[in-house]
């Protein structure tokens, strides 16, 4: 075992070194090719063309599309686009923008590539797991199109760095994954007068909106609406579902990212990045995608800016000076990690193991993950009642006395242990069960298993499949 580990480690190191060497060789080659191209261009007998020979070939198929043409291609070459988020949206959108020849592409992301990203974040791959996402994505983009300038910002966008980063670009693509960043990016784009293409996806649904287009100053009613005009009130924080918790189909987020690139390319080639070039009376739309819908796409006509908007209306109080002090976590109501139970209402996974091995078996293990997760893997003898079925006051999972999910054979004083994936939902359900009186005035113990099945893997069973 030990020697196998050692030779695996040696191989890994060898592969990493070879990849490093390969990168160096590729960079050298690109350098030589670029010089060659410049020499051809500078030769006195040839005319000075605005694009390199390789670029005419590379972009030919899109340049002969009548709405693009050489003018559109040169606008793409001059354009600079910031992609915030190098994930499921940022991968496809940046690939198409780079393919199309957007001259400067900036990428903001503070995360590291993980294996669970790979089914949808198509520019990362198994060998870039562990790398910074911005580096992984740029190494792909460089091999796709070496003619462009790529700028990496290996950080999360914050109220403190947003203006400095966004100001370097003409167009912003919001490819992030949280309400806080969506409001921050929208506010920054209003303040700096940058058009914004915002896309999002979860499970089988996606949304796409072009915002702040035309990018006129706050108070100018002719400017395009901002994210706050459309969604003035953030959703309750505990109802916000991430792709990690709710799931996401790769092609769903992929199609949204591709459409996002398309909207970006349209804005650039039509010369609509700058306010003075805006064609009047062009209505923006919000596109809704639903993989299971019929039709799958629906398009809503966007309205003008809201006269009540705190970011883009005449009454807006937002300024560049105030931006660094804005607390988007408070605005979106980000709660600290859930800790609603008292220590004695919770047990550790390894303590539960001892109980489970107790022959008396006078307890119930309630797994509150969604059924689809329970089906992937579950603990022996656990009962699955998803936490979502405890929502609402008339929930049948919380009937007075004895709910239907509690087996007939279970004694009225048998303990109930509640478990979930990470240990948040289980706390909420534990509390709800107590509030509903299932603890029989304290005769029945109802406890949360701290840290959920993640803790079970760490403390009890390392072979538990982590998904």
């Amino acid at each position: 075992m030990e020697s196998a580990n050692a030779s695996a480690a040696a191989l890994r190191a060898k592969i990493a070194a070879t990849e490093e060497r390969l990168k160096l060789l590729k960079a050298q080659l690109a350098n030589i090719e670029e010089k060659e191209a410049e020499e051809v261009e500078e030769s006195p007998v040839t005319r000075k063309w605005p694009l390199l020979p390789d670029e005419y070939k590379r972009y030919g198929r899109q340049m002969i599309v009548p709405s693009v043409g050489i003018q559109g291609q040169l606008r793409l070459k001059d354009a600079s686009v910031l992609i915030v988020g190098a994930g499921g949206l940022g991968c496809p959108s940046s690939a198409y923008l780079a393919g199309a020849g957007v001259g400067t592409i900036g990428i903001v992301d503070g995360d590291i590539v993980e294996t669970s990203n790979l089914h949808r974040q198509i520019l990362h791959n198994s060998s870039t797991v562990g790398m910074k996402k911005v580096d992984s994505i740029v190494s792909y983009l460089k091999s796709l199109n070496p003619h462009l300038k790529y700028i990496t910002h290996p950080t999360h966008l914050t109220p403190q760095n947003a203006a400095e980063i966004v100001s370097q670009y003409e167009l912003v693509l919001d490819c992030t994954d949280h309400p806080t960043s969506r409001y921050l990016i929208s506010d920054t784009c209003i303040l700096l007068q940058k058009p914004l293409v915002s896309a999002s996806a979860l499970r089988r649904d996606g949304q796409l909106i072009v915002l702040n287009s035309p990018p006129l100053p706050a108070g100018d009613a002719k400017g395009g609406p901002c994210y706050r005009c459309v969604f003035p009130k953030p959703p309750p924080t505990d109802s916000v579902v991430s792709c990690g918790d709710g799931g996401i189909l790769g092609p769903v987020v992929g199609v949204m990212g591709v459409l996002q690139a398309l909207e970006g390319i349209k804005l650039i080639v039509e010369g609509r990045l700058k306010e003075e070039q805006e064609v009047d009376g062009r209505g923006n739309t919000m596109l809704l995608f639903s993989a299971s819908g019929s039709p799958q796409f629906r398009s809503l006509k966007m309205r003008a800016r809201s006269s009540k908007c705190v970011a883009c209306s005449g009454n807006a109080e937002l300024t560049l000076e105030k931006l660094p002090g804005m607390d988007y976590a408070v605005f979106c109501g980000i709660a600290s990690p859930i800790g609603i139970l008292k220590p004695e209402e919770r047990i550790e996974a390894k303590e539960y193991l001892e109980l489970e091995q107790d022959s008396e078996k006078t307890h119930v293990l309630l797994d509150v993950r969604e059924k689809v997760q329970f089906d992937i893997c579950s603990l022996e003898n656990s009962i699955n009642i998803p936490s979502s079925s405890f929502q609402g006051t008339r929930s049948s999972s919380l009937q007075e006395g004895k709910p239907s999910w509690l087996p007939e054979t279970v004694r009225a004083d048998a303990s109930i242990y509640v478990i979930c994936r990470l240990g948040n939902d289980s706390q909420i359900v534990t509390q709800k069960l107590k509030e509903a009186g299932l603890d029989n005035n304290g005769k029945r113990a109802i406890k949360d298993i701290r840290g959920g099945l993640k803790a079970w893997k760490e403390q009890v069973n390392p072979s538990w499949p982590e998904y």
Partner: protein
Amino acid sequence: MSLATKAPPGHFSILYFASASSYTAKDTEHLPAPLPVSKLFDRLEEKYAGIKSRVLESCLLTVNLEYVDMPDDGSVGLVIKEGDEVAIIPPVSSG
């Protein structure tokens, strides 16, 4: 699964997107028309306890693919008619 089934006489269609669909466990259903938009959230709250604060208050509401404002001055506002298509569109923020 189809979002576009036609409402029976005397009803309108309501489409639930994203978290509205998860909360109601439905993509679409038919509700009796006419109904003033000002009453819509209360009607849904009766059917799906908790939906108002958990989902609806941060949603975009459309009738026949046009934005509708919830009247905030106590007036009745727009009335949803038979055959209309209402959509509840919560913000999707992940990606």
